[in-house]
Every structure is written in C-alpha cells, then in structure tokens.
C-alpha cells in the first residue's frame, strides 16, 4: 500500500498506539528518507517551531512543555537532570560513638542520602588521588556537619506512662539535629545562608536511654552518575502529548462507555438534538491506558496516538535547588559537553 499524503504526515509526526503494540516510534525525518521533503537541519525552522510553555511551577516541582524538539535531545536533558547536575552530599562519616541499635554502615548510608542545602556552585570538586589519605578536605570543597545526641530518661514523666514520647528525651534522631560546623572562612562566606539538611523531619535513628550518637560528616560535591545521593531531583521524567481522534460520531450509550474508557476529563458528552454525543475535550489528561481497545465495538471508533515532538516534562526537586535552576543547569551541562569535544578537536587539529 503506497503511503498517501496524510499517511506520510502521520508516520512523520505521530506515534501510533495500536491494540497489540506501539508503532512509528523512531524518528525517521532524516535527509533522504522521504522524497519531496527537505529534512536537513535548518536552524530557522527549528527556532520557529520550538517553544516552551511552563504549566505549573512551585518551589519544589515544575511541569513544562517542550515542543518542536527531538526525543534524543529531550532524553539527554532528562538523563542530565538525573545524573549529571552536581550537588553536595555527605561522603565521609566519622563515627566517634554509636551505641544505638542501627549499625554503623546502615547509619552512614542513611546520612549520605539526606539532601544538604548548599549551593554547589560555591564549592569545588574534591581532588581524589594520593592525597585522599592525608588531606581531610579544605574549606573550598568540604562542608563539615555534626550530629551529637544522647538519649536520656525523662525525669518528669509520670510513673505509669508507656508513651516513649513522654518517657524519653531525644529518643528520635531527626535531621534537624544535624548542625553545621564551619571550617576555615566558611563562617564569613556563608554567614547569611544556612547550610544544613533541606528537611528537618527526616528520621535518622531511634535511641533509648544511655545510647548516643557522636558523628562528624564531610560533604563533598558530586554527580548522580557516581552515587544516587548526589542526584538533585526526586525524579525528572517526560511523556509525549497524547492525541485521541474520533473516527466517527459516537452517541448515546456507546458514548457513555467511551467516556468511561478514558481518564476523567478527556471525553465530554455534548447534548446535540437530544442525544449525547462524545467529544474529545482535553487529550493531555489521558494516561493512554488503551482501555478503549479492549472493547470490540469501540476499538475501531478511536485512533490513539502521541505527538512525537511534544514533551511534557515533570521535574521534582529534592529541595537543594529550585526546579527551574535545575533545568537551566542541565542545559548548561550539555553545552559544556559539546564544548569539551570541540576544544579537543581544535587542539588535535592544530597539532
């Protein structure tokens, strides 16, 4: 079957969700693939078609649309958000005293995962090498935190109470008990911004009277590729914009059932001449469960697809950096990667 005009447009722009599989997934618009189309990279065409719409923004998460870009580059941004934007996190845990029932290594692991509110731009990467055995870390690359807490019996508790909150003092160790210890000139440089855990209410360990924790932590700069504790996002993901087309008029009871097959708010029933007719109102809300394809009388009425170059990004930050700063940082990391290889090409070309 020769590809017709509409069919070609559909193959180029849409991912088709079929009953048994998803087709047209890969980008095919490279020069030479489609006769009659000029697919060579054109900066003006890209800049004309490209847009970003911010849908939702608050201090910890944002949702924005990126339209007119290819999946390879959108995926590169997502991968960089997860693994290559640098942050500060606890790396070395010096345990002077741990008499709790949480093992040393488990406690150290938990402390590493606590997000630390410190701007990574103001710190350098620590130089790993032979000097890792001697240098304890200087003020430009290390943050020192301390956790010193001891659980004791509450003298003012009543005789027959069994509530641990009443009986003991300091029996729950929270992240708010972690204190910053400035080294070198950090006290002056960071006088106004408080360095410490992002959240105060992360439970680290539980203690009983007589048990104590005396721990010093060194935080360094790192990236998520090295260890997931350095990842600045709770998660960053994208989905493609769904597209639902009704191939014929659906009315009455069939329209009701069609509405039930999609997520709420996607299909609405309009009253035309007394009968209810189905209409696609907002396909963005659909989760693409393809439920409609399970019903034999409804599956030929609807065409499900996704728009291949419309990405709905959701970025949730752990609180270290605001989500819009994270996105700009991720884009800058990709630029830096390109620049690194351009410099390398230039330097080898000159040899």
């Amino acid at each position, binding site marked *: 079957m020769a590809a017709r005009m509409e069919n070609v447009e559909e193959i180029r722009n849409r991912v088709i969700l079929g009953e048994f599989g998803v087709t047209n997934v890969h980008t095919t618009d490279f020069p030479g693939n489609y006769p009659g189309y000029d697919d060579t990279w054109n900066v003006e065409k890209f800049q004309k078609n490209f847009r970003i719409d911010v849908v939702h*923004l*608050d201090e910890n998460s944002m949702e924005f649309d990126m339209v007119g870009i290819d999946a390879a580059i959108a995926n590169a941004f997502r991968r960089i958000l997860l693994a290559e934007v640098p942050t500060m996190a606890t790396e070395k845990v010096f345990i002077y005293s741990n008499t709790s029932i949480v093992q040393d290594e488990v406690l150290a692991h938990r402390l590493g995962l606590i997000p630390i509110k410190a701007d990574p731009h103001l710190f350098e990467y620590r130089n790993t090498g032979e000097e890792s055995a001697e240098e304890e870390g200087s003020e430009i690359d290390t943050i020192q935190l301390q956790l010193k807490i001891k659980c004791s019996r509450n003298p003012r508790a009543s005789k027959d109470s069994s509530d641990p909150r009443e009986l003991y003092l300091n029996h729950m160790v929270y992240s708010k008990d972690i204190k910053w210890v400035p080294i070198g000139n950090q006290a002056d440089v960071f006088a106004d911004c408080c360095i410490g855990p992002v959240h105060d209410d992360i439970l680290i360990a539980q203690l009983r009277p007589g048990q104590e924790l005396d721990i010093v932590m060194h935080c360094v700069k790192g990236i998520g590729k090295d260890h997931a504790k350095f990842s600045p996002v709770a998660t960053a993901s994208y989905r493609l914009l769904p597209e639902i087309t009704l191939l014929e008029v659906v009315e009455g009871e069939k329209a009701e059932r069609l509405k039930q097959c999609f997520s709420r708010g996607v299909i609405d029933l309009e009253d035309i001449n007394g009968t209810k007719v189905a209409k696609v109102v907002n396909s963005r809300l659909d989760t693409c469960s393809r439920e409609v394809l399970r019903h034999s009388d409804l599956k030929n009425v609807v065409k499900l697809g996704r728009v291949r170059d419309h990405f709905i990004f959701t970025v949730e930050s752990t609180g270290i950096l605001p989500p819009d700063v994270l996105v700009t940082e991720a884009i*800058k990391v990709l630029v830096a990667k390109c620049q690194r290889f351009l410099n390398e090409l230039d330097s080898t070309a000159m040899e």
Partner: protein
Amino acid sequence: MAGEGEKKAVLEMVQADGADEGCVTFVLHDEDHTLGNSLRYMIMKNADVEFCGYTITHPSESKINFRIQTRGGIPAAEPLRRGLNELSDVCQHVLNTFQVSMCDCSVHNMCLT
C-alpha cells in the same frame, strides 16, 4: 592522538588503513547515551553524512565508539565539528527560550498554581 603523559584521553580517532578520510570511528571517553544519541541525531540531519551511529562497547566502560561515514570525500571530522556546534546552538536556544518563558511566568504569576 591521545593526551600525553598523565592526561587521560578524551577523544581518539580510529581509521582503517587505506580508507579515505571520510570513514572514521571516533572514541569518545567518559560519555554515554546522553551525548551519543543527541549528537547522532544532529549529525544524521546533515545531508553529507551517509552513515552515523554510536555503540557503547561494554557497559562497564564509559566510552562510546562513534562512527561517521561521509559521501563526497568530506573529512569525517567536519560533520562531527558541525554537529557539536549545532547541538551547542540548539541547547543555547532552548536555554534562552526557557528563561524567557520563566520571566513571562513570573511576571504574569499565572503558573503558581
């Protein structure tokens, strides 16, 4: 082509003997699908390129083999350089567009839902 002394190699070129300058495999160190796939897309959009692909030779090693074959005798380093420049420009444009839409967002205050 690799760095001298202690410096780690970042980019190497491997060429088969007898082949012309148009068919080269570049070895990019410390890279993965993040740069590999996006660079492959930009280079494939170049009409002079006959073949472009990348492989991650082994998942334990962070390096990619990036192969470019050109038609018309063009040296393969040229589409690579052009692809890197174009990718860099795309990112710059994305950054500018994002910052403009963030400014609009804060001015109109409509996305603080």
